[in-house]
């Protein structure tokens, strides 16, 4: 109903505008005033009309409306918009007004208006010089399937040189045609094939809405054929997709656990405050972003790279203090470290609560972490991709420290034989302190990454502590590779159980499996053997 209305209006405006080119200014004001209202369906219609009109400011106005830079004067319903530099432009004259406009009211949009805008801007930018814009436009049309754009599409497809852009155009055209009852059958069948080649969910959606209500037998046949091939493809994809999810979940577990692999795995401290170290890292990220927002918004994309060393430093420092003040008195009494660190975690949580308030804090995502990378159908979200890479980097770096550096060497020495190491002149207390600080610092780094996918709240740490311990124990205490393998296999297992058993039951099953596994191999995946390990 609305669609047809919009078409009619659009055509009407088109006629007028084309007929009376000279007096477009008054005509423009007619069209533009339709935006000067609170009624969304009015605005929506206005948008379509504006798109169909030949008003020079149209595109600018629509864009302004899209990112809410558009206002109207209550007195005479004249439309003004801020240009990107922030100064007011009078839409009717498409020039800066003589005096600063006053008594303005912003034009609001809702989802329907937004959709109309996307469609309109899309159909207008088909001819844009920038191929990216053209592709965006094509996709907009693919979504809106606005019949009016058909002629425009035909002409641009004819002109288009860039193969990829052309493909997008043709897909858009196919999308329009496939559901256009009055289109010639041959064209619609061709459209079906085109969509079949595109082969993603959206194409499938279109094809599945081809019914005998709106198509002839042949079209339906072609449609269902294409649909079948797509769904076959998608079935394959989903398996791969699942593996990817598992991988990324695994990387999160790895991040959460890797610090613990040092403090618990290597040093044997049941570090219940580990989660809080992660939390501190997350809050550091928050603070960094706050400062950047206030001082240098342009640097926002750098907030995470800046936060990483700081987070490490903060958590490491806190870790150092804890080690010096509490843990150093508890070596060789692991179960007592549990109690003390539990107390520490309570205090840290409350401290953060007092400092930052109890509710969640906003940590924004830098531009390079937003969005999806679509390898025709196989979707990789950049955020997750970064986290996977990041966790692996952290892991390798840590491995490097343990293997390569003299600190790492001394650490291993102290862990394997404290007395001997001391006898050889290694200052074991220093090494202990540094090791714990290192573990805490790594946890802090993890917090930076986790702030991107989870709540930044005082409870952040608590939600990871159990999983972290499981990962370390499952992987085999004292073995970094074990932690890596443990995290990844748990992540994958979880993700492959989830579709079958559901999120909760899947997790329960996994826990049961781990419990049984530890019965089989009491020392985890990678166990040390021999007379060295006794009690």
């Amino acid at each position: 109903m609305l669609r047809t209305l919009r078409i009619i209006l659009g055509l009407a405006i088109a006629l007028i505008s084309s007929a009376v080119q000279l007096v477009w200014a008054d005509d423009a004001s007619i069209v533009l005033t339709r935006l000067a209202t609170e009624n969304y369906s009015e605005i929506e219609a206005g948008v379509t009309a504006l798109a169909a009109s030949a008003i020079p400011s149209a595109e600018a106005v629509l864009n302004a409306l899209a990112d809410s830079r558009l206002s109207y004067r209550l007195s005479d319903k004249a439309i003004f918009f801020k240009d990107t530099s922030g100064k007011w432009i009078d839409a009717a004259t498409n020039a800066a007004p003589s005096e600063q406009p006053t008594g303005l009211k912003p034009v609001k949009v809702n989802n329907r208006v937004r959709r109309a805008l996307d469609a309109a801007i899309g159909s207008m930018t088909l001819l844009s010089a920038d191929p990216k814009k053209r592709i965006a436009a094509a996709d907009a049309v693919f979504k809106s399937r606005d019949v009016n754009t058909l002629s425009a599409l035909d002409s641009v497809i004819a002109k288009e040189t860039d193969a990829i852009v052309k493909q997008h155009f043709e897909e858009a055209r196919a999308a329009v045609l496939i559901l256009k009852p009055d289109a010639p059958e041959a064209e619609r069948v061709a459209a079906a094939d085109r969509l079949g080649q595109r082969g993603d969910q959206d194409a499938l959606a279109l094809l599945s809405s081809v019914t005998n209500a709106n198509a002839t037998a042949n079209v339906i046949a072609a449609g269902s054929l294409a649909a079948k091939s797509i769904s076959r493809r998608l079935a394959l994809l989903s398996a791969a997709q699942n593996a990817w999810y598992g991988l990324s979940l695994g990387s999160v577990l790895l991040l959460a656990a890797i610090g613990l692999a040092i403090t618990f795995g290597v040093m044997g401290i049941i570090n219940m405050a580990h989660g809080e170290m992660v939390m501190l890292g997350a809050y550091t990220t928050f603070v960094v972003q706050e400062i950047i927002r206030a001082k240098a918004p342009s640097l926002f994309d750098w907030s995470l790279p800046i936060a990483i060393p700081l987070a490490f430093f903060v958590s490491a420092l806190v870790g150092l203090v804890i080690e010096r003040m509490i843990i150093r008195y508890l070596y060789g009494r692991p179960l007592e470290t549990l109690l003390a660190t539990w107390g520490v975690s309570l205090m840290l949580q409350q401290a953060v609560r007092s400092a930052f308030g109890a509710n969640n804090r906003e940590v924004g995502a830098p531009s390079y972490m937003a969005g999806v990378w679509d390898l025709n159908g196989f979707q990789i979200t950049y955020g997750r991709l970064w986290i996977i890479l990041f966790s692996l980097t952290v892991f390798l770096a840590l491995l490097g420290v343990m293997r390569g550096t003299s600190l790492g060497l001394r650490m291993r020495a102290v862990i394997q034989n404290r007395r001997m190491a001391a006898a050889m002149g290694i200052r074991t207390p220093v090494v202990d302190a540094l090791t714990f600080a290192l573990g805490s610092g790594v946890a802090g780094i993890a917090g930076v990454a986790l702030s991107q996918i989870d709540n930044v709240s005082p409870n952040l740490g608590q939600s990871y502590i159990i999983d972290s311990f499981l990962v370390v124990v499952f992987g085999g205490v004292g073995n970094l590779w074990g932690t890596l393998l443990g995290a990844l296999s748990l992540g994958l297992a979880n993700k492959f159980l989830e579709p079958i058993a559901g999120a909760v039951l899947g997790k329960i099953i996994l826990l049961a499996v781990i419990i049984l596994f530890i019965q089989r191999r009491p020392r985890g995946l990678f166990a040390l053997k021999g007379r060295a390990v006794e009690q």
Partner: protein
Amino acid sequence: MKRLISTIAVSAFAAGSLLASIAAKAEDTIKIGILHSLSGTMAISETTLKDTMLYLIDEQNKKGGVLGKKLEAVVVDPASNWPLFAEKARELITKDKVVATFGCWTSVSRKSVLPVFEELNSILFYPVQYEGEESSKNIFYTGAAPNQQAIPAVDYLMENEKVQRWVLAGTDYVYPRTTNKILEAYLKAKGVKAEDIMINYTPFGHSDWQTIVADIKKFGSAGKKTAVVSTINGDANVPFYKELGNQGIKATDIPVVAFSVGEEELAGLDTKPLVGHLAAWNYFESVDTPENKDFIAKWQAYTKNPKRTTNDPMEAHVIGFNMWVKAVEKAGTTDPSKVIDAMIGVAVPNLTGGLSTMMPNHHITKPVLIGEIKADGQFNTVWQTPGTVVANEWSPYLEGSKDLIADWRAPLSCGNFNVKTGKCGSKS
């Protein structure tokens, strides 16, 4: 040393009885209990409500208190621990002798204290939207019942977004379960086919949403306009919305309408990717009325934080508190049993420019607002019920409760009167 041990035991016990005797000394202030978690998982949501109450009491005292006496807030921390809620409620009423209590957020905490309030015949104001299916003589529900939030939201999506396919996603506890049952029944009544409804439950604090969001995406691309109705609980929302953003689900493709995401929750989020997703509440901070502007100004002044947000449960407390004050003045006493009777019919202005009235079912009338998330973390009201809506505490869409009504006026004065059997359910 043996003596020492027994002394420890005894002294501890002595200290305990001391706790009791404190209660004995008389007070010339009126005490109000505040029972909101200040630590643990629920502190995220409840701490603000504690501050709200302190603010309201402070305001009232500036106006000279109630019945010529100053009000005094008694704050305790039930620490997101449900049995502790009951214990603290008992302590507030018997030890601190509070005349009314404002508190609880989760249904379970309310369920936990309900017997206590009934046993000791005191008053609880419960400010959060909930699943309904309850009406206690001693509890006043100032939050929304499902029909004051969920059903209008669905109607809006049907009419304005032409939604034909529904995902009901919720955290696995009683509020989402019940709300979704009601919605399912409602949608089916509206002719939505079973295969067009997808129901999904996740545990508390669920943080890995990749699979589910992907499923939603798939479900949504079946050629019919799809929307998600989210009853996901506070903590899990942030990762949920972040994942929506990541997988590039825009509100123009699959709008998500949430019932437990307010300004507070959005404050923890980068809302730019979420522009256009919806929430259904009875109040938005962005509501453009003098009452609201005035409230926000005073609130931010009181908290000395110009960025401090407001939200729906806060408004509920504002309404509830004003109602209580009015009822007390009407009854001329703070004696709960009298106040409970006086409460019914009390009407006070809400912050959205209307009047909210306490109905005989101990629920209040509210307007329903649908808002779209804006880039600045506020809501843009896109639809609103013309008047206020009366709560259905017992949903007509549920098997067990369709014949039940609540009316606490004499002679009926029953929370679950069965119109079929003509009996008051619990005293059959």
